[in-house]
């Protein structure tokens, strides 16, 4: 397997505080890699730097061998790196179909001149994009809400829409930011199933921040553990759950030494507070 995202010695400093400190990790192409760690470990900061929201203070981030350090989010989007948001983003006053159809870049209809002078090309492209959107909705089984305003969708459906957005372009890597947060159990199963299908059928690479240990255990391999701004360890979830140092980091040391990371979602919810 080859590496698709390579984070090399990345540091992010906010004033005197090192949120991420000399962090190095790599994500294999075609994997679903999880990122866990206690609050304040720097997961979100690292994630935001990979997604192009924050610029690293120092260090390098490579996407498919190319240096993408400090590129803004829409540039990364062009290169096939997409993210979803913990709190789903959507164009709430547009329908689900319209939402999906906004995604592909460089549509000539968005161009001031061609919008008027190349009407034929614009409408051909538009038909193409619409067909693609229909396919995506079919894949995600959300065709029944295609004419619904996105703002009226349930939390879980919005997350599906976020996934759908990544499918409108040929994404290489998708960063999932707490996709399980605020989604009911049934829809969560749908989400997991869809993520796995995207991974196995379309070869998407996923990089997942998640507090829900159940979700991590079901979905992710390998799992990377961060603590105090740097990578502590990585490996299969079962190894991680037995790792003394990880337990120490999560619970600040347990006197009996036999605590394990809870796979209960209540712990995850508490964690989010």
């Amino acid at each position, binding site marked *: 397997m080859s590496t698709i995202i390579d984070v090399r010695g990345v540091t992010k400093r906010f004033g005197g505080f090192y949120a991420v400190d000399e962090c190095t990790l790599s994500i294999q192409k075609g994997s679903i890699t999880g990122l866990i760690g206690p609050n304040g470990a720097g997961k979100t900061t690292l994630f935001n730097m990979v997604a192009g929201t924050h610029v690293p203070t120092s260090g390098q981030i490579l996407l498919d061998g190319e240096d993408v350090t400090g590129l803004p989010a829409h540039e990364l989007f062009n290169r096939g790196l997409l993210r979803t948001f913990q709190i789903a983003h959507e*164009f709430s006053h547009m329908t689900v179909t319209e939402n999906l159809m906004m995604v592909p*870049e*460089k549509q000539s209809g968005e161009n001031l001149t061609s*919008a008027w002078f190349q009407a034929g090309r*614009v409408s051909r492209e538009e038909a193409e994009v619409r067909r693609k959107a229909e396919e995506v909705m079919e894949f995600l089984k959300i065709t029944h809400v295609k004419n619904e305003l996105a703002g009226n969708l349930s939390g879980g459906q919005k997350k599906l829409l976020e996934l759908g957005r990544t499918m409108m372009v040929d994404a290489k890597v998708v960063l999932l930011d707490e996709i399980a947060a605020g989604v009911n159990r049934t829809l969560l199963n749908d989400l997991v199933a869809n993520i796995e299908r995207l991974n196995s059928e379309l070869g998407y690479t996923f990089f997942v921040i998640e507090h829900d240990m159940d979700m991590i255990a079901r979905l992710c391999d390998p799992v990377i553990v961060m603590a105090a701004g740097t990578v502590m360890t990585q490996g299969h979830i079962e190894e991680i759950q037995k790792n003394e140092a990880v337990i120490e980091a999560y619970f600040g040391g347990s006197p009996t030494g036999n605590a394990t990371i809870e796979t209960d979602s209540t712990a995850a919810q508490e964690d989010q507070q």
Partner: protein
Amino acid sequence: MNEIVFFINKGITSGLIIGSIYALGAIGVTLIFGILRFAHFAHGDMMTLGAFVTLILTAALASLGIVLPLPLAFIAMFPAMAITACLAIGLDRVFYKPLRQAGARPVVLVMASVGVTLMLQGLIRLFAGVRSRDMFIEAPKEIFRIPFPGASRPLIITEPQVLLIVFTFVAVIVLHWFLTRSRLGKAMRAVSDNPELARITGINTNHVVWATWIIGGALACAAGTLLSMDVTLKPDLSFNILLPIFAATIVGGIGQPYGAIAGGFLVGFSETLAVFNWAILLRPIKDHLWFEVPANLALVPTQYKLMVPFLILIIVLIYRPTGIFKGRVL
């Protein structure tokens, strides 16, 4: 029946006219707010600027001796709309864009637009003087007198008023089509709905901003021209209607083009109906009334006309705090 004719002439027609002007202005203000997130105070002077561009073109056409079935000023308005749109993009380039790129807060942009207002007013006065001008250079404006059944007085409507109403109607339909059907219009709605997501999904923000200024500038020019065709062109003409336009924008729900249209007509009608002398309508039935009909029964004296939009604003915002149409996005 003469009373009803009087009511239509002084109440309905006037309300429709001033409402159309407010609506055309408010659409621009609301679009600019929706996309660029600041209240554009220079909009009134963009209207005056547009009207002056039209005047110059009209004078040029008149001196060439061209005679057309429609008033020259109306014909000249269309190229003037294009020119004003370009000027609007130019103003954005020079004054607002650098501020946006420096990450200025909206209030800074508002202040900048107040500065642009003062600058435009000064420039217009510098080149055109302060006297009022007639937009009808080649021929006096036509006045239509339509006989009303059972009344000795006719309905009166002038040619520019007809043109204004027709133009507003067409502009609203075209705008609706543009925002709901065209790709660029949808991109505009997307940017106004969720700018962050729009940026990330790679919507071409530059083109969206240009489209906003083109629509705003062109409609401002049209509103300024048609207003000065209805009355006369003065340098402070549009500045005086800026406040009602803002009231209309807010009443309709800020960032909502349909709200702007509704707000424009609501403010326009309430203004004219508030100063309308209702005693005239009551006079024919005065024998059946239990009270003496006074000579003047306007709700507010004409001098206080400017107060009405704000009264409407307060009333609407008490019952619908986000405006008639829920505000903030297109």
